[in-house]
């Protein structure tokens, strides 16, 4: 009857799968202390980079951070981005480290 119904059902299934899998994957990765530490480290590095480029953080002539009114929205966005970068990078590291798939140069050459 409705041609778009199979697609929408697949979409909803995928979405529900994502909703259930995402917290689970986060729980698996962040149940280990080294991953939490590394994620924080990466988030901090990105936070510093973003804020230096936004001219909110200066190292010379003195170390100083300031937040003028016009930069508040940008600062909130960079904080969110830095945290998400920490989570994203470390989850990828977990996947690479625990993947059973072996990436060998030969495979790429064969495909080419």
């Amino acid at each position, binding site marked *: 009857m409705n041609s778009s119904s199979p697609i929408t059902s697949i979409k909803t299934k995928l979405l529900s799968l994502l909703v259930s899998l995402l917290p689970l994957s986060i729980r698996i990765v962040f149940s280990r202390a080294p991953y939490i530490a590394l994620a924080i480290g990466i988030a901090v590095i990105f936070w510093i980079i973003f804020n230096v*480029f936004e001219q909110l953080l200066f190292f010379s*002539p003195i170390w100083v951070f*300031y937040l003028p009114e016009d930069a508040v929205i940008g600062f909130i966005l960079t904080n969110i981005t830095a945290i998400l970068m920490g989570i994203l990078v470390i989850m990828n590291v977990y996947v*690479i480290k625990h993947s059973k798939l072996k990436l060998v140069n030969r495979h790429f050459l064969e495909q080419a």
Partner: protein
Amino acid sequence: MQQQQQQRKQQEKLKRSNIAKIISSSFVAIFYLAIIIIFSYSSSLTSSPHATNNYAYAITQQNQKGDLSLSTLIHQGSPYFGDPSAPITIIDFSDFQCYLCARYVKATEPLINQSYIQTGKAALIFKHLPNRGFDSMDAALAAQCINDQGKFWQFHNMLYDNQKPIDSGWVSKDNLKMFASQIVGLNMQQFEVCFDSKKYKDFIESDLTLGSSFGFQDTPSFIIVNSKDGSNPEILKGAHPFPSFKAIIDKKLEEMRNSS
């Protein structure tokens, strides 16, 4: 069979340890890269001739560019604010279209004004560095024409308060005249003659040359010098907060106190 299994296990262990090594080394590489980027960027934002051991070079450049003493800068016609006999001069290279300049004007300049300019410790000189957009030169020309009638800072604050995206037309010739007409007591006829004839084009180009000779490409950029002879220049690039200025000015005042 057992030997083959052991070999496989050993190979897997080796592979795992290799992956761990690759991951950890890539982390170290990312970390060092980030540190290098941050420090190279921050050092480009702030460079003191003393800190970079380029003091002699800076002095030579300064001598080639001319006198940066407060009296000379005022005599040349640069807009200034504060006591002409103040011991420290802050030379501000800005563009009216630059949003970081607006940030400096709104967040930092009032604190400098309150702590150092009103107390007679420092004076502020404005230099034009109109390199953000096509309309920047017109804004600089208009501001310099208004300086003829002693209303520069009113116009300066008005433009930064009404700042819009670069080259969006907010500082078109007509809009600049409209902004000027809002200044109480300004002789519009005199302003329009000055603005339309581009009277200060050479003056602004000399400011641009001075700024680029100090390596200023981004705005705002600052040179903080001793007012008397324009010596001991300290350079700040970027919209630094008040504590950065405070650190440099207090250091200079301390040096002056010790030498006298």
